[in-house]
Structures are given as C-alpha cells and as structure tokens.
C-alpha cells in the first residue's frame, strides 16, 4: 500500500485525514502488545499509523513521548527488533489494513545504514519515514536511498519556514506534508495554536499533496479546528499520554474513534 495514494484517495472522497502516532516497543501492560495498539487505532478510524522508533535523545519531543521512548528503550526495544515485529504482524497493508510510516531520529537511520534502513522498512511493510532532525538541506542522501526502495519520506514544515523554502519542502515530501502546528516540541496543549491554521493555509496554497498538522493537536475539537484549513491531523502525545496512564488499546481506540467521529461530523 502506498501512503500518499491512500491519503489522497481518502481526501478526494471527502474525508478529513487522521494519522495516529504510537511509540513502537512500548510495554503497554494489560497483557497487550504495542502491535495490538497499532491495530486498534487503525480499526478505530486512523487512516495511517506513525510508529515511533525510540531514540535516546529525542529533541523534537516533549515529556510524554520522551517518557514513552525511555520506557520502550528500557524494555530492550531496538530498531531491528521493532521492524521485525511489524514484519511479523504483516506490515501496514497486510497486517494493519492501513499504511504505516516510522518516525525516528537520523542517528538511528545513520547507524543502521541508510540503504539497509530503507530496505528494511520496505521489507517490513512500512511505507513511509518521518525524520524530524533531517531537514531538507541534509536529506539528499537519505532521499536517494528511500526512493530506491519506494519508501516515502514525509518532510516537515514549520511556522518559521520562509515561503520559497515551503515550496521546496512540499516538492521534496511524499506521503504527505507534515505541518508542525506550533513553535515547540510534541506535547499536549489546551488549545490549538494560531500558527497551526496559518501554516496549513500557506501549505495548501502551494501543494496539492495531503497537508496534515501535527504537534500540539490534542483532542477532537482541536482536530476539527485544524481541519478547517488542513487536510488532516496527526495525534501523538494525547494518545501516548493515555497509553502511559494505562488506558490500553481500547482506551486509545476510543480517543481515535472520537476524533474520527468529530472529523466526519465536521
């Protein structure tokens, strides 16, 4: 399955897009595995799932995802092990019924080997990669490997990105364009930042690729608000906070279903 074609088809048939983030390898308790969490959020209405490969020094992440990453690493999670579990579960299309993208930091990719990482994603049924500390100017070598293995690289755009650069980022991005909704790291916020709508509008003006807003989209109301300009949203910390609190797959599926219902209602 292909991330961008799936998201485009959903959007073009009149739906708003919802991507859920889950930290891979996190011990979720209650006799469940994180793979079951991924499956549950897909079933509850996520159009794609972003699987975090935990890294020791996640500079784009706030306390919730930092904590989830720490716990996953403590539990012995490795990039190879995590991808093997995804492959064992049938990957995105075969296993979860929705496309998957991994989210990780560049040192994980670098240590794996760019070529071998791209190949492993592809073999594990992962469609895309999001690498937040690999900006456009440094992305060339990875992009070459990713394209070679048909991995879609989702590029991030920020509120501070100048107009000309926004165009270049959209041109380079595949899967979707990830608009970082606020100046800050991932985390749960009380309200949607004004910068989220402004960025979504700027992105929509320069690309017809799906534009999703992530970072600081924390509940159904904020998702609906973001989607007044954007094609969709990424929900991360709000979901992970529930998971860390022990809500299990049913608890996070409930959140995703709630957001999905709100998006369908507009």
């Amino acid at each position: 399955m292909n991330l961008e074609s799936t998201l485009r088809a959903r959007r073009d048939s009149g739906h708003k897009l919802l991507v859920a983030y889950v930290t891979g390898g996190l011990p979720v308790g209650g006799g469940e595995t994180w793979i079951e969490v991924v499956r549950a959020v897909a079933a509850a209405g996520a159009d794609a799932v972003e699987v975090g490969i935990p890294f020791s020094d996640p500079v784009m992440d706030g306390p919730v995802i930092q904590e989830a990453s720490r716990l996953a690493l403590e539990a012995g999670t490795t990039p190879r092990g995590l991808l093997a579990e995804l492959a064992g579960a049938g990957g995105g299309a075969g296993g979860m019924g929705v496309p998957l993208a991994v989210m990780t930091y560049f040192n994980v990719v670098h240590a794996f080997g760019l070529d071998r990482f791209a190949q492993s994603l592809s073999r594990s049924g992962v469609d895309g990669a999001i690498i937040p500390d690999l900006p456009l100017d440094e992305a060339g070598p990875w992009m070459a490997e990713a394209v070679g293995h048909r991995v879609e690289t989702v590029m991030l755009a920020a509120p501070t990105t100048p107009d000309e650069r926004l165009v270049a980022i959209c041109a380079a991005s595949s899967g979707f364009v990830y608009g970082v909704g606020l100046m800050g790291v991932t985390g749960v916020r009380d309200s949607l930042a004004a910068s989220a709508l402004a960025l979504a509008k700027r992105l929509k003006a320069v690309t017809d690729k799906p534009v999703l807003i992530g970072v600081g989209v924390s509940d159904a109301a904020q998702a609906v608000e973001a989607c007044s300009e954007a094609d969709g949203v990424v929900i991360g910390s709000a979901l992970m906070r529930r998971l860390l609190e022990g809500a299990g797959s049913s608890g996070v599926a409930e959140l995703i279903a709630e957001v999905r219902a709100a998006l369908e209602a507009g």
Partner: protein
Amino acid sequence: MTVPPMAAGSRPFPNNVPAGRVLMQGSPGPTGRFGEFGGRFVPESLVPACAELEVAFANAWSDPAFRDELSGLLSSYAGRPTPVTECARLSDVLGVRVLLKREDLCHTGSHKINNVLGQALLTLRMGKKRVIAETGAGQHGVATATAAAAFGLECVVFMGEVDVHRQELNVFRMKLLGAEVRPVSSGSRTLKDAVNEALREWVATVDSTHYCIGSVVGPHPFPWMVRELQSIVGNEAREQCRKVLGGSDPDYVIACVGGGSNAAGTFAGFVGTGAKLVGVEAAGGAAIGRGGIGVVHGMRSRLLQDEDGQVLEAHSVSAGLDYPGVGPEHSQLAAMGRAVYRSVDDEEVLAAFRLLSESEGILPALEPAHAIAWLTREAGKEIPVGSTVLVTLSGRGDKDVDQIVGLLG
C-alpha cells in the same frame, strides 16, 4: 534573512569540501562541513534561525566595529590578554619545559567568557533580548549569566541534575547573577541532556531568544562561530610563546576536550605551525578515542553510541568533559592526523590536580587537569625529554574544591 540553497537530492554525502582547505581557516562553507563532519541536523523549526545566525555572525565578524567592541570588552571586562606562565618547578619534575596559557585568570574563571561575550554582542545585534545556555561544569552557565547581567539580557541556563549537585557553587553564582537555572532530569541528567533541553526550549522561543551554545558543537554555524570566538586563546599564546622561546613555537600544544572549545581556540593559533596538537579526553567521555561516527545535537561527528545509534552516557569526574560527543572540527582534525586525541582516567586527573597545585601554586579546574595529567604521564615517553610544551589551562579549580575535598579526603 537568507536561507541556504536547497540541495536536497543533489548533494553528495559526505560532501566533498576539500579536507584541509577549510580547516581552522575561514568558514566551513554554506553546508557547515569540516570534511565529512558538521552540518545542520536540526528540526525544520530551527533551520531559519541557524541560517539567520550564520549570516549575522559572518557580517559581524567582518565588521571592524564589532571586532573593536569585542576586543575592548575582552580586555576591559574579561581581563585579556591572559598571560603565559613558565612552570619552572613542574618542568624540573617532568623533564620537559612547560608553559601554561592562563585562561583560568579570565573573569569568571575560564575561557568560556571569550565565546560568551561575542555571542552576547551578537544577540544584541540580532535584536534579541533573551539568551539560553546549557552548562555542565557550570562555567559556561556562569559566563552566560555574567554577560546577560552586563548587557541586560534575560538568561535561562539548563543544567543536568547530576551537575547541579556536583557544581553547586556555580549554581549559586548563576542565581546571584540573576539567571534562572533549570535542572534537567531526563536521560543521564548531565551535559548531553542539558543540550537536548536547551534545543527544545530554543525551538519554542526562537523568535525572541538566542541559544548561546558553550562549545564548538551543535548545528552550523555554532562549531565555526565558537572556534572563531575562542581563537584569541591560540593567537595570543602563539605570540607569547615566541617571546618566551626566542621566536620558536612549542613542540607540543595540549588542551583538554569536552565539546572542544578551548582546544579548538588553542589549536587555531598553532595549526599553521609545526607544533604537535594533542587533545585530551576523559577516558569515560572519549568521543574520538572510542566513539563512532553519528549525528546528535545537530552535527555529524564522533560520539559514544551503541550499535543501534543510541547515544551512550559519558562518565567523568569532571562535569565539563562528561559529554558523549565532540565538535565536528576535532573529528576532522583527527581524521586528517593534524591533531591526536588521547585520554586519561579520573585517578590520573586527581593526581595531576595535586601536582600542579603543589608545584606551581595553581589550582586547575578538573577539565584542564586532564591535559596536565596526560603531560605528566607522557613526559619522557610520548613527549621526548627536553621538549617545549604549551598547555591551555582552561579554567581555575575553585568550583571543584568541594568535590575534590570529598574525593581526596
């Protein structure tokens, strides 16, 4: 603001800036590379700020008015030039002729003030009113808090919880200077995590805030800018050594390496001479000695990591060298063989601390005590008897006295 050219998909990696040409001379080019090291691996939110800083520094550095203002501050406020001291008694003990570059005599007690005064002026020039910094030993935090007080800037310093305890005196100093100290409880709770937290804060406040980084680390332009601001150490020392040594340069130039700023500043003055350059790392933080190539804190360099690229925790008695990474220019100097990097363990460091205190009446900080320790161990071995040696004494030991009383009893 200018943005670097879009090069996605087109630039070879590692890029092919000819090694050596950019070395400690001029700028590392728009890609921020020292050979295959360096770069700008930061979230998109920070890319425009790094680009803005690169332009602002390049302009300031070629502006005689800026250089004059900084020189004035370095002399009237920081106490430059610092002397070079010939160590007669230590030389007798070791059988080599030892000269010390006395950065311990700078205002605030270390070389860190050289960098900070430059970045504080730059902060004002960019119209920003707030600085943030990371600190390990607390010397960079104190220097930043000092400059912030002197220039009326708001200042927040991130410091790992472990370091807050072992460098308590510096925490008080920062607070007395009006800075806010934020203890960092994530990860190893030392310098590495303080950098992470400062980067996270910078992402959230980049419009109003300058990140005053404390060493030759981080995304381009920081490694280049901090080396330039510290090059005064080596440039002064070269001329001072020539006076003492009848026109010659020392055979060996030695400096401790945490992120590598005092070493980079020192080496910058001697890279064009025949001196052998030696960086001394802590055995438990030897990014060049034991690390592999990786990407963290915005730069491609050597770092301590496991096979999956997870960054390992460094371990050193000295908070300032308790860092798993190293500045990219040092990785390149090592790759070219222009400098060598050695390491010493905590025990050797404490012995060296004692030796310098007792033989010369100079209490070194634990960081430069590493450089003294390597000198002590290798005088008459790797360093032939009769050699002349310059060691950069990057800071004074006052901050460490409490800790050392505990360790030496």
